[in-house]
């Protein structure tokens, strides 16, 4: 169903763009974005689209942007990306992990078009990759949770057991343990990135079981809303969700893709674009914390100090010693976990009383 829809949209977009290309428009740089979800999800795709809008605002007449939303990961994505490349786009951002192979395939056929793939790990001469170190923000969340929780239990709504999500849970737990070594965490997997009703159910289940600070790695504001209704605290995800939890949101990890998008479009305009691998974090302005709210001043101060330390590089959430659940030393004292090990993380740190699903 989705396939038919996105194909039709891609073809329509192709015609529209190919049709309206007079000679003088050639000076404009055409850039396109491919989203896995609806731009109206108020989460992942929404934030990428905010980045696209920032590009339009920043460059004005020099850039013409377009996007295709709700594109299925898989063969369908290849058709959509191919259409966008044929329509004269010179820079194409594909913003979901599953677009990796389709992006590479299309890139091979269009050597003069630049491609940017988010969250992937395969590059080519005209394909860059980019991602953000969201786990840096989660370390701060863990510290705040440990200071705020009265029951000593954090509730975590997780999407899929992939390294990025597991690294997020570990980072949050390490942050919490740095304040209170006895903090407990309850993890519920909803096996979906976006299902508001299910996310709300998960939040309620965690609250019923005694969690009083809710963190999520799913995309809708449903959990925040549920936390507000039940008078417990929560962290927003992807977007600042303060409107959904005026008395509950402690802070939120906000994905800000605008600086990266503007930088890359500038490079394409200047002719200095090269294939790169960017994994930006707090110091690059890609991981932004929403204002610290609903907490005492001393907790706020601690959060700000930690954020500043991570931004300056003085603090790394994955700094040793770090032990696995069974007590194995994974990171030695004075060392930090290598990026490649974070990107393939499939184990929980000591203190998490649960199993990674499927292991």
């Amino acid at each position: 169903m989705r396939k038919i829809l996105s194909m039709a949209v891609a073809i329509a977009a192709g015609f529209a763009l190919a049709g309206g290309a007079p000679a003088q428009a050639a000076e404009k740089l055409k850039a396109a974005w491919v989203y896995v979800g609806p731009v109206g999800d108020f989460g992942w795709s929404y934030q990428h689209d905010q980045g696209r809008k920032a590009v339009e605002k920043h460059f004005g007449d020099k850039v013409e942007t377009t996007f295709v939303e709700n594109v299925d990961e898989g063969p369908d994505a290849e058709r959509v990306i191919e259409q966008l490349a044929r329509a004269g786009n010179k820079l194409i951002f594909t913003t979901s992990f599953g677009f990796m192979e389709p992006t590479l395939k299309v890139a091979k056929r269009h050597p003069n078009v630049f491609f940017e793939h988010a969250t992937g790990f395969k590059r080519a001469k005209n394909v860059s990759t980019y991602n953000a170190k969201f786990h840096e923000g989660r370390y701060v969340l863990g510290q705040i949770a440990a200071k705020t929780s009265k029951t000593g239990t954090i509730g975590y709504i997780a999407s899929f057991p992939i390294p990025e999500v597991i690294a997020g849970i570990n980072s949050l737990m390490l942050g919490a343990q740095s304040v209170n070594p006895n903090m407990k965490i309850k993890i519920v997997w909803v096996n979906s990135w976006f299902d508001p009703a299910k996310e709300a159910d998960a939040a309620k289940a965690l609250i019923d079981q005694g969690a009083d600070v809710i963190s999520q790695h799913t995309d809708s504001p449903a959990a925040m809303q549920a936390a507000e209704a039940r008078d417990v605290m929560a962290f927003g995800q992807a977007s600042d969700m303060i409107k959904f939890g005026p008395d509950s949101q402690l802070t939120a990890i906000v994905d800000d893709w605008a600086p990266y998008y503007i930088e890359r479009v500038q490079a394409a305009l200047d002719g200095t674009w090269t294939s790169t691998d960017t994994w930006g974090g707090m110091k690059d302005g890609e991981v932004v914390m929403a204002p610290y709210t609903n907490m005492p001043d001393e907790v706020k101060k601690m959060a700000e100090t930690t954020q500043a330390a991570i931004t300056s590089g003085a603090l790394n959430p994955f700094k040793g010693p770090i032990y696995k659940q069974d007590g194995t030393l994974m990171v030695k004292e004075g060392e930090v976990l290598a990026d490649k090990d974070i990107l393939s993380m499939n184990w929980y740190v000591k203190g998490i009383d649960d199993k990674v699903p499927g292991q």
Partner: protein
Amino acid sequence: MLDAAIIGAVLASVVAAATTLLLASLGELVAERAGTLNLGVEGMMIVGAAVGYVTAYGSGSLLLGTLAAVLAGMALSLVFAVLAIWLATNQVASGLATTILGLGLAGLIGASFVGTQLAGAPQLHIAGLTELPILGKALFGQDAFVYVSFLLLAAVAYTLTRTRIGLVLRAVGENHAAAHALGHPVRGIRTLAVMFGGGCAGLAGAHLSLAYTPFWAADMTAGRGWIALALVVFSAWRPLWLLGGAYLFGAVSILQLHVQGFGLGIPSQFLSALPYLATIIALVVISALKHGRGAPASLGVPFVPDR
């Protein structure tokens, strides 16, 4: 680890989760008993959710929003009815088109409301009863949608089996040629049945966007329309079985979250698949026990009167 407070909370969540499914599938059951398979439930639901939210947000009235959602679901079902019943197009294709159209329309309608929220539908509170342990919150602490779903279920069950209207509707679904020969307006009755289905789907959408998670987000139905369709088959087209099916689905989907929270180490993927496993098992059991009471005989067959 299992005290009365948790059991009570779980039961209350199960009732809420089952209500969306019950509302949507009840409407589809009526449409199918009259012989029309409408795969547009997901589309009608999401349009109901969007129109209901936008109306309630604009007017400040949840009741007005709910009414608008029902009307919106009906309006979209009418599009399907014109295609599938009056122009006798393929019902599966028309139904899929309705869902695609609905998802697109809803996204458009709700686009400028992303990131806003409403105060959700209030929950009943009867002093003394709502505080009862275990069943108090589940029975006496729900929003109006829950109680409406029970009233609708009773009305549908009664009408289908105990009234002349129900008899005619079932006749149209079982053998449209015979019903036509007896002088019953087959296409008119089917249109009304489909519109009832659309209204129920719109109401189910409103339950999501006005009570369950009172905000608008594109695709927020997340496949519940398809589960509702499966439930109709699961229930062997019987309203009371439908009630059981909807609550079974609701129960499994809530319980699996709690089981995870207790950290029992059962893989969450398995738990997420449980409701569907239950459907497959139920389908096998139903087909094994068949008392000649399967699908309505004319289900999915377009009716073209020869004179």
